[in-house]
C-alpha cells in the first residue's frame, strides 16, 4: 500500500509517502530510530500488517517537522531516506 501522509495547502504539497509493502519486508525498520523528530512509528494496520506510519500528531505539520532535515535549496539526503535500503520512504518536496 502507498500511504500519503501530509497535506496540500496554499504553499505547496507536503506529503511523506510510505510504501508499506516494502516496510513489511523490513524487520529492523531503521528509519524510526534515525528520525531526529520522532515523526515515524511502527503500527499494525487495518489488515494486520506491521507497517511504518507518520505519527498522528505530525500529519498536519510535516512541512515543519521534516523541514530541518532538508533545508530549502540544499542537496542533502534526509536521515530516514539514508538508512532505508528498500526505498520505502519518500517526501514530495
Amino acid at each position, binding site marked *: *500500500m*502507498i500511504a*500519503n*501522509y501530509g*497535506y*496540500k495547502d496554499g504553499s505547496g*504539497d507536503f506529503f511523506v509517502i510510505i510504501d508499506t509493502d516494502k516496510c513489511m519486508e523490513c524487520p529492523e525498520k531503521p528509519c524510526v530510530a534515525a528520525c531526529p523528530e520522532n515523526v515515524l512509528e511502527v503500527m499494525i494496520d*487495518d489488515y494486520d500488517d506491521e507497517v511504518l506510519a507518520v505519527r498522528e500528531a505530525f500529519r*498536519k505539520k510535516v512541512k515543519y517537522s521534516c523541514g530541518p532535515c532538508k533545508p530549502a535549496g540544499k542537496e542533502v539526503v534526509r536521515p530516514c531516506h539514508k538508512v532505508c535500503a528498500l526505498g520505502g520512504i519518500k517526501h514530495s518536496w
Partner: protein
Amino acid sequence: MAEKPKEYWRWDEYNWRNPDIDWRKAKIITAGVDVGSVSSQAVIMADGELYAFANMRTGSDSPNSAINAMNWALEGTGMALSDINFTVGTGYGRVNVPFANKAVTEIACHARGANYMYGSTVRTVLDMGGQDCKAIRIDEKGKVVSFLMNDKCAAGTGRGMEVFANLLAVPIVEVGEMSLQVEEEPAPVSSTCVVFAKTEATGLLRDGWPKEKVLAAYCSAMAHRVISLLERNGVEKDFAITGGIGKNVGVVSRIEKELGLTALKPRYDTQIAGALGGALFAKALVEKGTKK
C-alpha cells in the same frame, strides 16, 4: 420573540430499513458506526446484506453520537444491540464508540464500503466528508492500494459547503443544481481556505454576482482542489464518490468534467459508505473467529 434564523445548511437526517430482510433468519448480524466530525451513521447488516441504517448529525460528543445513531438504526426492527455479533467503529470518533468491538480507520472502511456500494470494478474512491477529503485506490476486493487524506482545512469538504449554503441563504440540497444554472462557467474562487473563500464570495455578491454564479465559482474551486489530490494519488477507472458531497451534482459534474471520467451512480446514500465498510469488516472478523 425573535424568529430563529433559517438553517440553510441543514440536510435530512433519517433512518431506513430493508423490508425484504428478516434479520431473525440471519446467521451473522454485524454493524458499523462511523462517527465523523459533521455526521454520524450506523449501519446494520444481516449476513452481509444491508439491513438498516441511520444517518444523522454528530452531536457534541462522539460516544453519544454513536449511541444515538445506533438506536435510530435499530428503531422499529425488533433487534436489540445484544443481537449484533460484532460492531466496528470508524471515523474520527472511532475509538469512542462505547459498544464497538474494534476500531478500523475510515480509509479502509470507505474502501470496503465503496466496493459493496458500487461493485468490484471500482478502483478509485474519492470520499468527500464533513471535514476532510480522501483519495483512495482500491483493488477488486475493496482493499486499499494507496491513499491520501487531506484534513487540514475545510475547503473541499461538507462543512465548507454548509458555510456557503448559509452565506448565500440557499438550502444545501439545492446548491449543486443551482450552481449549474450559469451560462458560462466563472473562474473558481481563488482561496483554498474556506474562511477566505467566504470573504471572497461576499465581495462577489457585493459586486452584483448572482448566487448561481458565486456557487458555480465555489463548486468549481472545490472540484479543482480535490482533483489535484486525486491526481497525486493516481486515478484509475472505475471511479466513485462517497461522502455527503457525493450528492452535490454541482461538484460531482465538475469533477467528472475535469477528470474526463464519469462517476458510478450510487445504489445507496453516499454518506453511509464508511459505516457500511465497518459492518463488512465486522462480518469478516466474525468469520475469522476474531473477537475483541
